[in-house]
């Protein structure tokens, strides 16, 4: 592999995966499969009958009005929420109550939250090395080397010894991205990663995400950054009232939406 390049070595795409990523999107395997997924909170149906397949290396942007179930849907993919009907398969692993399956899936899937959720009581470096040491059982030196490479990749290696509260929002979110990447996931989930940020910090986070997409990471992003979506997304998914209303490439969504609700929503926000 290209050892000279810090970015490449931090991602470590295995040879077989690299071969798959070289193919066009249509010929790749499905890494996320959701079939007729439902989720209720008490009697309220937050996600209804969502079916979606995501190809390896694909970037899907999810958008829709507030309360439409975007977060709930994305959180079901790493089981922060439990789906109650339907089927979810992540990279060939069926989502069940089996602890081993759950562990395997959580290793495959990284997540970045709107509120960053960094651990305030440990340093930036500690935040990133924690899970690799405790879950992947990397030796400390190796975990720290990995963390430093990731921090360089998101552009803040000099912040390693600070505590999260000492960083700006944009820096914190980039640490959160590095922390998720340290588990070397196959899929990254983003739930409105820039919504809690001041405008001048949004760009730095979107840049980190853009770069990540360019390395062939499979990404599911809930975001209302339509510029980012237009540029980076392979497909866009419009959610409304818990249902997946429309799923298609950005060109279709922006220029030729098939559903009235999609068009109405876009007219409102653009």
């Amino acid at each position, binding site marked *: 592999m290209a050892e000279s390049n810090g970015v490449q070595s931090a991602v470590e795409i295995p040879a077989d995966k690299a071969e798959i990523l070289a193919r066009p999107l249509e010929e790749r395997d499905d890494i996320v499969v959701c079939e007729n997924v439902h989720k209720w909170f008490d009697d309220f149906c937050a996600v209804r009958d969502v079916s979606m397949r995501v190809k390896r290396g694909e970037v899907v942007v999810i958008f829709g009005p507030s309360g439409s179930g975007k977060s709930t849907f994305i959180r079901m993919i*790493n089981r*922060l929420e439990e789906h109650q009907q339907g089927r979810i398969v992540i990279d060939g692993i069926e989502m069940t109550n089996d602890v081993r399956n759950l*562990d395997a899936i*959580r*290793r495959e*899937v*990284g*997540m970045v*939250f709107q*509120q960053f*959720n*960094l*651990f*305030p*009581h440990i340093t930036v470096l500690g935040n990133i090395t*924690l*899970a690799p040491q*405790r*879950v992947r059982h990397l030796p400390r030196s190796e975990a720290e080397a990995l963390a430093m490479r990731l921090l360089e990749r998101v552009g803040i290696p000099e912040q390693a010894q600070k505590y999260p*509260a000492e960083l700006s929002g944009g820096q914190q979110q980039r640490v*959160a991205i590095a*922390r*998720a990447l340290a*588990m070397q996931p196959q899929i990254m989930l983003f739930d409105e990663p820039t919504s809690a940020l001041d405008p001048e910090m949004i760009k730095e986070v979107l840049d980190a995400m853009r770069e990540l997409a360019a390395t062939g990471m499979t990404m599911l992003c809930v975001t209302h950054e339509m510029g980012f979506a237009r540029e980076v997304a392979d497909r866009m998914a419009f959610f409304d009232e818990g249902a997946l209303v429309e799923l298609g490439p950005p060109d279709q969504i922006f220029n030729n939406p098939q559903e009235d609700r999609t068009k109405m929503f876009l007219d409102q926000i653009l």
Partner: protein
Amino acid sequence: MTARAAPAPLPPATTVGVLGWLRKNLFSSRGSGIVTVLLAVLLGWVVVNLGIWVLVEADWTVIISRAPLYIVGLYPYEGYSRLAICLLLISVLLGMSWRAWPGPARRFAFAFGAVMLFVGVFPHEMAPEHRALLLLNLPFIGLGYVLTPRPAAANPGRLEAIAGGALAPALERIAIFSTPRRMVIAAFVALVLIMILILGIAGVPGLDPVNPADLGGLMINLLLAFFGIVCSLPIGIGLALGRRSNLPILRVACVIFIEVIRGVPLITLLFMSRHILPLTFPEELNIDRVYLAGITITIFSSAYMAENVRGGMAAVQAGQTEAAQALGLRGWQTTLLITLPQGLRNIIPAIVGQFISLFKDTSLVYFIGMLDLVEMGRVSVQGNQEFIDNGREVYLFIALVFWVFCFSMSFISRRIEGALGVGRR
């Protein structure tokens, strides 16, 4: 980079002199003016009368002549130097915390040193070697200070600025308390040594065992409160985790324990420990009442500690657990590495508060016949014709001692709160 920016405007003056402050805070309306005058008269009257009594009428000889009883109870005179060595150990720990935690701990180290200096030079009956040991505390605070490296974030202190760079490498080499773990170990070793020094070991020359019943005075209040808090922390954490556990039996057992203990007064627990519990174990197992009191106070404190810990952990944001789960941490890893440390940090002020109230509660051990500070005060007055009229002096002195300890505790707690940023993130 050509034109220099105009100097930033100054903020408006916040107070307009003493008169302005008075008018704003004390005489803002006719009503508040009247209240202020009335309160001032009342306060002045109390202060003047009390002051006259304290300075002129009161007879403080009882305090000075009975001071050893109030401070260390019936502890044998031959052992006083052992107690003084305990103070030296505490001094080292104080010096260590002063260096590691300059803000909150410095004043405490100062105050401790000042008390030692005062008692060491105060003109009263005291053996010269005891005076020397007390004064030795001052260099020992310094010793603890230099054995600890400067925290990375802190600026070099005045001392170091004077000593200059020449000493720095030497200082670095002798800094043995260099990690939090080493500090905790040092504190733990010091506590064990203090226990050994106080109680003694049979057969070791110079460490003759002391009859536990002779422990008393302020020393026993402090020991019981301190060991009560220290021992109840792990037990309380265990109970809190048990209460959050998924195992119904464990959960119910913890809830019952916590609620039963919290539902009864400490004095009834002390009574039971002394008069009911011994019925349940063999007669020859004659546990001294000091240990019974220690165990009872620990159990009592554990129940409250458990609730504190639970509250602290519940205050940790849900996002923290979610992030840990998303990273693949198991449930127990999430608790031990994420929720518990943050929860404990949240409750440091509550723990200090609990220590304060436990410290005051230890005066209840008179009920099982122990001579703590308060009981010793009562005995010294009522048991002695000479001092039978000095009750006011004695109880005022006792109140002052308790107040000084409790106030400095809550003072430190507020400083620690600030340093840790509890309440902000």
